[in-house]
């Protein structure tokens, strides 16, 4: 553990909030799981940048930034300053105005009021090219890379080092990239093809791209949303190294523990306003959550012990292949009873996606059977399963759960448009659809100007609430929730967890699939662990230790302590 980031002298994360009862910190589990991971980039800096930096002018200062969109003030006189070598976290719920602020800084939109200062000098940023020229670099959540190009080609794209005439000086570019990578402790082969690299490495290329263009202020928009916990730790090391070398970093996130771990300073934004600053050394997750949401937020799931009833979903020997014909779900057997939540834990990509698709009629099964309330349901259509009382919250909400250009009200009936009262004899009833939306929007607290705006204009949390509202507002016997809170802020997570528990208490069987171990531990009554397509263990959640579950997730070895999966079959 000599390379553990928390033992480096650079910005110390807050004291582990283990002191606050009930809060579990994900990094602890990851530390355990990825025990063997060597940690790159945590260099031996000795100065505390946040202290040293205050003496000089801020690298970046935004004063009184105001931006109005029709019907909404996205930014309301926001002040923020970032010192050289400082990691400044911008924390806020989805739709709080973080992205708008950064788009103003990057010159994508102009502010209505306020000014931007770089190194104490007021500047007007006319566009991304101008921002780059002034040393501002942006790393978007969705990477802007060309997969078939090499690392070097991607980095120089748009800023090609010219040799003689119109020819690229590839060698000079590669050398410069090599120097940069070495300076900041990146381990990247400039000749590798980007499409072959992991998501974590691709993100580092984005960062390198910004540095290559001379970025002194680096903006990272939710950089960890697409990363595994291990990659997150690695990128944190990179960021610390960059800060130590003097780069100012704006870190946008809504993940509390991450912000506490990485930031030197935290600014919290709510509904377009700065509601406060926090010092990560003293602040707790509860403090930040309350500032973010504006009320006290329960970070633990409030639920009573389950009272399981009859078996609702009975899966026996289910085997499923992926698109290439590889067996990805291998002989899985489990049961879910009415009134209980079975959580499937596992590192992403261990067959959970295909298991869910097979159970929801989106993928054919190769062997085995699944019964819903006694009726065989594998290889039935999604329509039939829905009719039998299956509610499904898909993992990829924008791909499967919503039709983004459709208005909110149409998305609220996406799986029920063919039923009364929304249609009769094949003719849709627009009035009934509007009335349904008028009821569901307040009931599920969907924040939208109206039911007729496209779902694409809503924040991720509110988009997910549309799906929850649609799937929960009808009688269901089985709820299949796949990553129900991925990418959501604490307020939305709390809301959706409450809704799931309420469905359980109302007698529905719930199958929860999540890559977030904490979510499974807190929400589930029983835990099944998937490893390489097999359900290697099922445990009672009450006595489950996080370390033990994490270990099984990582190794697939249930050992003597875990019950064998097939015990119940």
């Amino acid at each position, binding site marked *: 553990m000599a390379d553990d980031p928390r033992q480096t002298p650079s910005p110390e994360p807050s004291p582990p909030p283990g002191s606050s009862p009930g809060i579990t910190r994900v990094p602890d589990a990851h530390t355990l799981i990825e025990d063997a991971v060597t940690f790159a980039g945590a260099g031996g800096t000795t100065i505390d940048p946040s202290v040293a930096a205050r003496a000089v002018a801020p690298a970046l200062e935004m004063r009184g930034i105001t931006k109005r969109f029709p019907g909404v003030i996205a930014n309301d006189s926001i002040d923020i300053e970032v010192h050289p070598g400082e990691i400044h976290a911008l924390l806020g719920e989805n739709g709080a105005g973080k992205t708008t602020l950064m*788009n103003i800084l990057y010159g994508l*939109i102009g502010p209505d009021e306020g000014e931007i200062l770089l190194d104490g000098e007021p500047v007007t940023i006319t566009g991304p090219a101008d921002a780059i020229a002034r040393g501002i670099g*942006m790393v978007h959540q969705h990477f802007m890379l060309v997969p078939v190009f090499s690392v070097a080609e991607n980095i120089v794209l748009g800023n090609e080092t010219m040799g003689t005439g119109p020819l690229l000086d590839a060698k000079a570019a590669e050398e410069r990239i090599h120097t940069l990578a070495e300076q900041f402790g990146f381990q990247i082969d400039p000749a590798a093809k980007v499409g072959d690299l992991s998501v974590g490495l691709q993100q580092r290329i984005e960062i390198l791209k910004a540095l290559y263009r001379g970025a002194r202020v680096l903006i990272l928009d939710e950089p960890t949303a697409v990363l595994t916990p291990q990659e997150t730790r690695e990128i944190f090391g990179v960021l610390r190294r960059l800060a130590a070398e003097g780069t100012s970093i704006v870190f946008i996130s809504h993940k509390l523990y991450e912000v506490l771990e990485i930031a030197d300073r935290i600014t919290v934004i709510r509904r377009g306003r700065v509601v406060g600053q926090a010092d990560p050394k003293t602040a707790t997750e509860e403090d930040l959550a309350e500032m973010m949401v504006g009320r006290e937020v329960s970070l633990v799931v409030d639920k009573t012990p389950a009272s399981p009833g009859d078996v609702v979903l009975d899966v026996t020997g289910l085997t499923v292949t992926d698109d290439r014909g590889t067996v990805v779900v291998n002989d899985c057997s489990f049961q879910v009873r009415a009134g209980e939540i079975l959580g499937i834990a596992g590192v992403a990509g261990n067959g959970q996606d295909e298991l869910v698709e097979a159970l929801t009629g989106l993928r054919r099964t190769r062997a085995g059977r699944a019964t819903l309330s006694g009726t065989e349901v594998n290889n039935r259509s*999604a329509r039939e399963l829905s009719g039998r009382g299956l509610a499904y919250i898909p993992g990829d909400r924008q*791909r499967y759960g919503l039709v*983004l*250009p459709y208005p909110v009200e149409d998305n609220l009936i996406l799986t029920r448009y063919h039923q009364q009262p929304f249609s009769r004899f094949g003719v849709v009833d627009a009035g009934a659809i509007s009335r349904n939306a008028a009821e569901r929007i307040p009931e599920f607290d969907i924040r939208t100007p109206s039911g007729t705006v496209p779902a694409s*204009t809503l924040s991720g949390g509110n988009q997910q609430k549309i799906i929850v509202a649609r799937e929960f507002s009808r009688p269901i016997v089985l709820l299949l929730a796949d990553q129900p809170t991925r990418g959501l802020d604490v307020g939305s997570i709390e809301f959706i967890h409450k809704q799931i528990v309420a469905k359980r208490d109302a007698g529905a069987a719930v199958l929860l699939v999540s890559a977030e171990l904490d979510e499974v531990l807190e929400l589930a009554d029983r835990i099944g662990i998937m490893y390489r397509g097999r359900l290697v263990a099922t445990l009672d959640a009450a006595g489950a230790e996080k370390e033990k579950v994490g270990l099984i997730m990582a190794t697939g070895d249930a050992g003597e302590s875990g019950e064998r999966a097939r015990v119940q079959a």
Partner: protein
Amino acid sequence: MTSETGPGQGGMSLNPTSLLGTDRGLGRQFTSTVVAILLGLIVGALLIWLSSALSEDGFQLDLPLAAYLSLLQGSLGNERGWANTFNAATPLILTGLSVAFGFRAGLFNIGAQGQFFLGAFGAAILGTTVGIPFPLHVIWTLVGGFLFGAFWGFIPGLLKAWRGAHEVVVTIMLNSVAALSLNWLAGVVFRDPAATFPRTSDVEGSALLPILLEGTRMHAGILIAVGAALAVWFLLFKTTLGFEIRTVGANPSAARYAGIRPARITVLTMSLAGGLAGTAGAIEILGITKNYPAEYNTTYGFDGIAVALLGRAHPFGVVGAALLFAVLRAGSGAMQRETGIPVDIISIVQGAIILFVAAEMVIRRFLPGGRRATGGAAAAPSAA
């Protein structure tokens, strides 16, 4: 709230639905379409003005106005003009609907041309049947034309649903197959021996569309075309089937999730689209040509693509776009007679309009509140 216009979902490289925008942004689409039309007319006017330099009188500033006025006079100034305009609009509406209907389901029906030929040929054959009384014969022949066209749309639909063959490639090939094989059928197998050039026999009088305006050739086809537009609108926006079609077009994955079978919708949509284009062909036979010439020289099917684009794939927009094109065409002869401006200028104006519609990003800059940025990715290239 800023309304996002048609974000391309998923990673499709060629997704016609990205042309549609949201149904809620209709006002904005209307405005930008009108701007495109005006810009197209300005391009035409500039060319007319420049070409006047070649005449003996030198530059004539008022020549574009005179040309456009005589064009309007020719197409809307008298009964004959009206008749020509509506007769020209009829097939354009139907082939435009055919292409627009495909767009809605995410399908690029380039095959309206071949489907038009099939429908025309079917009607030309069925129309020669002797002994069926008047209204019945017309209906029977039109239904036949619809089915012939639908069959020609069904084939690419089935290949796409069954084997994933791209409809653009298949329909382009089927256009050639239709044109060449019908050429042979009409010129050899079904040739009217009495005719001086290779063509099928004239259809029976009982199969001809009634004339709406005495003393002109204006036939009842326009009523069928407008009725079809209403029917397509109702189907797309008021029925569950239309909901399914639009959902498949907007997001096939979500459609599957919602219990819709995209393959079934693809086959159905292509068949109905083919039927619409086939009906256009049938009406053209029963209202204008009365027989199928072996060298059938028409581009109504391809023009449907332009009409659908200009009409933003909305049935009512298609009617408007078809009427506009029909006005330009019906009046072009008068314009040439009176001002000496060749009819070809109309093709340039039409082409320019489509270019401006396609270049909507450019047009948006002329509109108040044009979006500079709603999200980084889309805005970045234009801002650079």
